[in-house]
């Protein structure tokens, strides 16, 4: 039996009927979830010789991630500000049950957070790709994580297609040409900007050997080192983001 709820505005304890109403409202605001298979972690050997563990993040890790993401919402370069602001909202929405069927994958190097990707299931067969945020630049972390995200939608969540739009025209053009993506302009992308492009199951498998790498399983020791998530040093992170151009391609 849950403890009685005290209503501060009314200055009294709620009756069980009011309790029931709030629980009902909460239930309405908290939508039902689709079952989602977990993402099996993998290890990626980066150009610098470091190993990045790509694994699913849990809702308990959102607070740490929000702390790292928030300062980037002021960085007016390479669309960091809008990606950070939107990712912040999406992860917070995930934690407070206001966004449904969301997942989040992280790239962790030596226990330190190096990149975040997220998305959600529109329904069983269609996914929506949200964002890719790279915290350690120069090592194609974003590229690896985006591919992991596609891997998750198609292979582990068993979907048929993923709806994608990128904020950065350069980033979008890269994926558009690289996979390649098809137009699906009849679908307005949830982010509220442009209509969607789509990665189909077919295209994914044709591109997989070229674009999706990493080795499984991850040894228990290596996986354990990626918990708990540690924040990168803020000043170091900001400096190297500003100095390194992501790609020449």
């Amino acid at each position, binding site marked *: 039996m849950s403890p009685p709820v005290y209503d501060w505005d009314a200055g009294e304890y709620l009756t069980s009927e009011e309790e029931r109403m709030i629980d009902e409202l909460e239930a309405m605001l908290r939508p039902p979830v689709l079952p989602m298979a977990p993402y099996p972690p993998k290890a990626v050997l980066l150009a610098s010789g470091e190993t990045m563990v790509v694994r699913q993040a849990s809702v308990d890790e959102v607070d740490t991630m929000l702390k790292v993401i928030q300062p980037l919402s002021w960085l007016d370069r390479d669309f960091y500000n809008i990606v950070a602001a939107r990712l912040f909202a999406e992860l917070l929405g995930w934690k407070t049950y206001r966004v449904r069927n969301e997942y989040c994958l992280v790239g962790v190097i030596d226990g330190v957070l190096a990149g975040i990707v997220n998305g959600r299931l529109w329904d069983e067969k269609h996914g929506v790709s949200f964002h890719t945020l790279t915290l350690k630049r120069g090592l194609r972390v974003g590229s690896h994580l985006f591919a992991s995200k596609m891997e998750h939608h198609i292979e582990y969540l068993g979907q048929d297609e993923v709806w994608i739009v990128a904020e950065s025209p350069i980033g979008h053009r890269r994926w*558009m*040409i*690289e996979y*390649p993506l098809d137009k699906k302009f009849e679908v307005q992308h949830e982010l509220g900007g442009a209509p969607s492009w789509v990665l189909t199951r077919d295209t994914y498998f044709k591109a997989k050997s070229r674009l999706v790498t990493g080795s499984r399983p991850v040894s228990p020791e290596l996986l354990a080192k990626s918990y708990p998530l540690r924040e990168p040093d803020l000043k170091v992170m900001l400096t190297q983001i500003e100095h390194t151009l992501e790609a*020449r*391609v």
Partner: protein
Amino acid sequence: MAMTVEAAKCTNCGKVSYPMHFYCPACRGTKFEPVPVEGEGKLITWTRVYALPLDYAVLYTTLGIVELDMGVRATGQLDITEPKTGQRVRAHIGKVREINGKDVTGLVFTAV
């Protein structure tokens, strides 16, 4: 749409140059007549280029330098999936680029 790519044949000594220079490399003559760059040749070297300017919306293009039997060398696009240095190729004219929305034609080589 231009149907040929032209080399310059010196009217004085007959040497064919491609690309054209102001003076004939052999006799320093300054008068030339156009001669189409065509025919077969040998592929000297090639590459697949992935980092392309905005005019291209493809993943990569294949380029090569060809030593043509007619006596000049030419750079062109290769319509060959797996090029090999030394293979015999034939010159065609095709669309190679878009500049300011207009199609640009040039040499495209296929395997013989």
